[in-house]
């Protein structure tokens, strides 16, 4: 074997010191084997559920399932922990069909397979049935400018209505630690203090009919993907086809001109220098915020 393979083969698991290390955990930087990784991953989620008292015995829980990596792993782990630790929960899969051809129709096929693989009943609610519109029809009408916002708002209500149809007590989603970090950053960029104050809560909507929780709040995205890969879980991994280009350019530019009105009053030279500097900062921020905005509108409109 090559030198590097010898080194990798020689690196034993930090925890059991018996098996070959397969990954380096981003959470703890420990190099651990697959079997130990499964144990710590599942145990940590179990501890989050217990310490935050997310569930009570006998509750009906809907798992927001898109067929993607987070919701697939969530469904798998939750059904496993429910069995192992006797949570006493009735679990359901709840999917939303936005009517996005080439994306949602394919991912729903994945959820239908998950229904069989995990033995969890599946309910699908569609935009067409609820609102009379599919996302394809909406995009045809308005283009790719604000479609993510429409979709996010519609999906929130669709999940609420699906959960009500299933008569569940709670809704769980697969939002992970990376998602929450992105939400915090975007709320800071948007200056949305109200959302910032509640966007890290593990349970939201407790004063409403159906609270929502995020058991993966402290789980790193890389670990979810590695868990899904090692366990050979069936999930769908394609970006939404109606992904729109970033929108924040105009808003942030306006924001800068509001807070820097003196730019407009001073002499041209100084104004040009400030204008260039602001636009350089904007460019850097927009490069970062484009994907955050997509995630925010698409998946974090819940918080």
């Amino acid at each position, binding site marked *: *074997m*090559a*030198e*590097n*393979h010898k*080194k*990798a083969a020689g*690196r034993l698991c930090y925890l059991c010191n018996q098996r*070959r*290390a*397969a*990954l*380096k955990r981003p959470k703890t930087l420990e*190099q651990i084997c697959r079997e130990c990784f499964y144990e710590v991953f599942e145990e940590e989620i179990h501890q989050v559920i217990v310490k935050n008292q997310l569930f009570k015995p006998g509750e009906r829980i809907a798992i927001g399932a*898109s067929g*993607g*990596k*987070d*919701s697939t792993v969530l469904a798998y782990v939750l059904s496993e922990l429910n069995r192992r630790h006797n949570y006493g929960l009735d679990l359901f899969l709840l999917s939303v069909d936005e009517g996005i051809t080439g994306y949602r129709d394919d991912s729903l096929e994945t959820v239908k397979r998950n229904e069989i693989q995990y033995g969890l009943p599946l309910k699908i609610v569609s935009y067409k049935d609820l609102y009379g519109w599919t996302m394809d029809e909406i995009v045809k009408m308005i283009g790719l400018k604000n479609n993510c916002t429409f979709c996010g708002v519609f999906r929130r209500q669709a999940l609420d209505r699906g959960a009500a149809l299933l008569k569940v007590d709670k809704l769980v989603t*697969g*939002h*992970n630690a990376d*998602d929450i970090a992105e939400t915090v950053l975007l709320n800071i960029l948007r200056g949305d203090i109200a959302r910032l104050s509640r966007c890290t809560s593990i349970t939201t909507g407790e004063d409403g009919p159906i609270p929502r929780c995020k058991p993966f709040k402290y789980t790193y*995205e*890389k670990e*979810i*993907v*590695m868990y899904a*890969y*090692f366990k050979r879980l069936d999930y769908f*991994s*394609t*970006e*939404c086809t109606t992904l729109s280009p970033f929108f924040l350019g105009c808003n942030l530019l306006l924001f800068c001109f509001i807070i820097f009105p003196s730019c407009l009053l001073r002499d041209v030279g100084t104004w040009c220098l400030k204008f260039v500097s602001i636009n350089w900062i904007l460019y850097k921020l927009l490069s970062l915020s484009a*994907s955050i905005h997509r995630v925010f509108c*698409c*998946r974090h409109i819940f918080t």
Partner: protein
Amino acid sequence: MQFIFDSVKIHNLNVSPKNGADKFTMKDLLVWVRTNLIKERPEMFMKGDSVRPGGLVLVNDCDWEHSGQLDTNLEEKDLVVFISTLHGG
């Protein structure tokens, strides 16, 4: 990520080190992949010399962070897996 590789999931490659070098590393592989396999939008796969942030790499089912990332030496019959995390969950 598949669409930039002509929607083919698995590729069997026959590659050899350039300029008579005795080792073939992950860095060489990425360059080879960008040149020979990617039909469009290489920025969806790579950034600079390495994989785009959000991309995971496993060599023989082991995180490439163990084996030196770009300096990982590759041998015959090695299995390299690229996984994207940049999609909905």
